[in-house]
């Protein structure tokens, strides 16, 4: 269960990170802004793009990578196939529906495709989101400022790197890597919690651009062996209204005597018991 809740928390926050809002004017960096303007223009002018993609997630000592092939085409057409099955699903948009393959291809979810490609399950894949929506990045709706970091070589490629800086406390850092073609090739999101750091990267390689392909090439049918996804009912196992809440006796973070449910509820008209975690 601990694995599940960590993944769920991360996916939730990362999806919010890749959503968009306006850049705050306060601490804007001219060079960073100018570069991103070029990238936006170059991206908007691209009809169709194919690339090899790698998505990796490093949490503590463990790194999990998924690689595959990506095709993006305006206004909202996608083929994204990743292996092995993992946190990032393979997904397809034929313009009308988005099909998301989960659980190693055993389940699929079908949703209406946003006409502008804005409801794709890209998670931390900023280069994909950016192809369709070039509004500057944000952190959970708070404005972000750009900071030009300079040139960084990753493998054979030299990128110009721009960092998105948030005024929010504990905000993740996002670095955007711009290729020599002035396209967004790579993004790296870093989240620090105490002395633990998690790093999520998405990298496009062998990018090829071209004229729009026939829409039919984006048609998709899930495999016959795949079942439609049923969202788990998170309330299914909860104690029923009217029943007695189970007792407990649990330690506190400051040490000392454990607290029991009856210690807590005794003499109080109503008690809110909140189950939570920080991250």
């Amino acid at each position, binding site marked *: 269960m601990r694995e599940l*809740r960590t993944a769920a928390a991360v996916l939730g926050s990362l999806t919010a990170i890749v959503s968009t809002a306006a850049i705050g004017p306060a601490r804007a960096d001219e060079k960073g802004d100018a570069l991103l303007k070029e990238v936006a223009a170059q991206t908007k002018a691209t009809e169709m793009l194919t690339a090899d993609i790698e998505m990796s997630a490093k949490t503590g000592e463990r790194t999990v990578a998924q690689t595959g092939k990506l095709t993006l085409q305006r206004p909202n057409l996608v083929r994204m196939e990743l292996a092995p099955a993992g946190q990032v699903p393979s997904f397809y948009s034929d313009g009308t529906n988005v099909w998301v393959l989960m659980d190693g291809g055993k389940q699929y979810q079908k949703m209406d495709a946003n006409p502008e490609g804005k409801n794709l399950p890209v998670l931390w894949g900023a280069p994909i989101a950016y192809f369709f929506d070039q509004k500057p990045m944000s952190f959970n709706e708070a404005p972000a400022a750009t900071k030009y970091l300079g040139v960084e070589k990753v493998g054979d490629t030299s990128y110009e790197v721009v960092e998105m800086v948030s005024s929010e406390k504990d905000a993740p850092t996002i670095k955007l890597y711009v290729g020599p073609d002035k396209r967004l090739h790579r993004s790296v999101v870093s989240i620090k919690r105490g002395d633990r750091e998690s790093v999520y990267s998405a990298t496009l390689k062998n990018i090829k651009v071209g004229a729009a392909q026939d829409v039919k090439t984006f048609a998709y049918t899930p495999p016959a062996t795949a079942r439609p996804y049923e969202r788990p009912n998170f309330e299914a196992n909860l104690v029923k209204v009217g029943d007695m*809440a189970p007792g407990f006796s649990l330690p506190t973070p400051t040490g000392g005597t454990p607290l029991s449910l009856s210690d807590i*509820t005794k003499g109080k008209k*109503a*008690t809110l018991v909140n189950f939570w975690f920080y991250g």
Partner: protein
Amino acid sequence: MYSELKDKGLNLVAINNGDERDVINKYVKEGGFTFPIVMGDYMGGDSSVFKKYGVQAYPTNYLLDENGRVLWRGVGFNEKQMRDALEKAGLK
């Protein structure tokens, strides 16, 4: 929202899943929280508090009366639902 409700007589306990003591203590200090926090026995398998309360997602909230009977419960944060339940429990 909590401080508003505390003034109206709401009692709160937060059961934490899996964070380390110093992470929780830092979070409490920075938030200036005064309600009790306990550390759930997340390694406890079927006898863990999370299992006993049927918690599958976070946050999960339960509103209990003075005897520990469940008045309301829900997954996710739905302020309206919570306020309605509090009103019903007599905490206006």
